[in-house]
């Protein structure tokens, strides 16, 4: 399973179009104001049947201009808000992708789920990335919904179908409230360990865990890992039996005396050293 950070749309083009629509709305509004004065002009300069017909035509044009100007203005506002929401989503996706590149495997715009050998820091990073992407997709979904609703209301397009919210989505906020901004993880900040998740309880000592590092070292290493430094906990030294046994007759090794210095513990050659997984 992968997490997609792909993004569709161009907020800058939305803002440009919104600006043009706003300019168009201003022009239509000016024209509407002039036509309104013509529709209600006095009969001092123009009176008679033709004057009434002229005022009637101006009144009809005033109604159309008012409708068009209002539609252009509302669409400009909605499109600017849509572009702002898209820009927030794009920024959240980009920061999330940057964060994932530091700790996880990213192929193009896809973030791969950490494998079974991933450490706690990588798992927490993936959980944070997953949650952030989910919130960003919710904001994106809401932005498209609001923009299409504005188009349906002011431009007469097909009404927005009632679709099921995204899984885990919260109820939509009131229409007057702005959509919630997705949290933007800062790639520069280290990933803090989840305070809600307590560290696992220490296992009872048994034969299999004789060589395991102490839990404090594990937690400290996990904190360091979550802080952006991918390290591994220090490995505890295995106890070496230094009891000297007198050589037997079958032993080919040269005789040693108790005063002979004992060489230090030899690392096990067949043990695979830990490396980046």
């Amino acid at each position, binding site marked *: 399973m992968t997490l997609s950070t792909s993004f569709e749309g161009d907020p800058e083009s939305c803002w440009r179009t919104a600006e043009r629509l706003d300019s168009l709305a201003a*022009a239509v509004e000016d024209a509407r104001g002039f036509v309104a004065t013509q529709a209600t002009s006095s009969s001092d*300069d123009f009176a008679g049947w033709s*004057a009434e017909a*002229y005022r009637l035509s101006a009144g009809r044009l005033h109604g159309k201009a008012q409708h068009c100007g209002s539609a252009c203005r509302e669409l400009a506002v909605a499109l600017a808000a849509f572009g702002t929401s898209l820009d927030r989503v794009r920024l959240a996706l980009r920061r999330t992708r940057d964060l994932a590149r530091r700790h996880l495997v990213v192929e193009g715009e896809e973030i791969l789920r950490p494998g079974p050998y991933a450490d706690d820091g990588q798992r927490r990073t993936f959980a944070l990335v997953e949650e952030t992407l989910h919130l960003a997709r919710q904001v994106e979904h809401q932005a*498209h919904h609001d923009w299409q609703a504005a188009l349906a209301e002011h431009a007469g397009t097909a009404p927005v179908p009632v679709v099921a919210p995204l899984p885990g989505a919260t109820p939509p906020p009131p229409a007057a409230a702005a959509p919630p901004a997705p949290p933007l993880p800062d790639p520069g900040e280290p990933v803090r360990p989840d305070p809600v998740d307590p560290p696992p309880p220490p296992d009872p000592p048994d034969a299999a865990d004789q060589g395991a590092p102490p839990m404090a070292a594990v937690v400290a290493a996990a904190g360091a890992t979550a802080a952006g430094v991918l390290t591994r906990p220090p490995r505890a030294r295995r106890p070496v039996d230094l009891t000297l046994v007198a050589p037997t007759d079958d032993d080919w090794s040269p005789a040693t005396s108790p005063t002979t210095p004992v060489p230090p513990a030899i690392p096990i050659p067949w043990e695979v050293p830990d490396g980046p997984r």
Partner: protein
Amino acid sequence: MFTVNPRALRHASRDLIRHGLDVDDRLQVPLPDTGRSGCATQEGLERVLAETTAVADGLRHLGDALDVFVTTSSGVDGGVGGALDRLLPGATS
């Protein structure tokens, strides 16, 4: 009896045409890239711009008609109530 102030009406006709041209000049609105809302965006903007184009045309036509009416009425004494009807069909209905 009717009253016509040619100077005021010519001024009004010029303003109507100017407003129509001004709206017409700002009708060049680029289509934004709205991702998966692209189809709805194109349809909605085309509708709004079509209506606005009709308003701009109406402004210019009304200004032209008023200018023609003033030009015509200056040489006609009365009975020009139907002149605007010929220029703007259905205007008096």
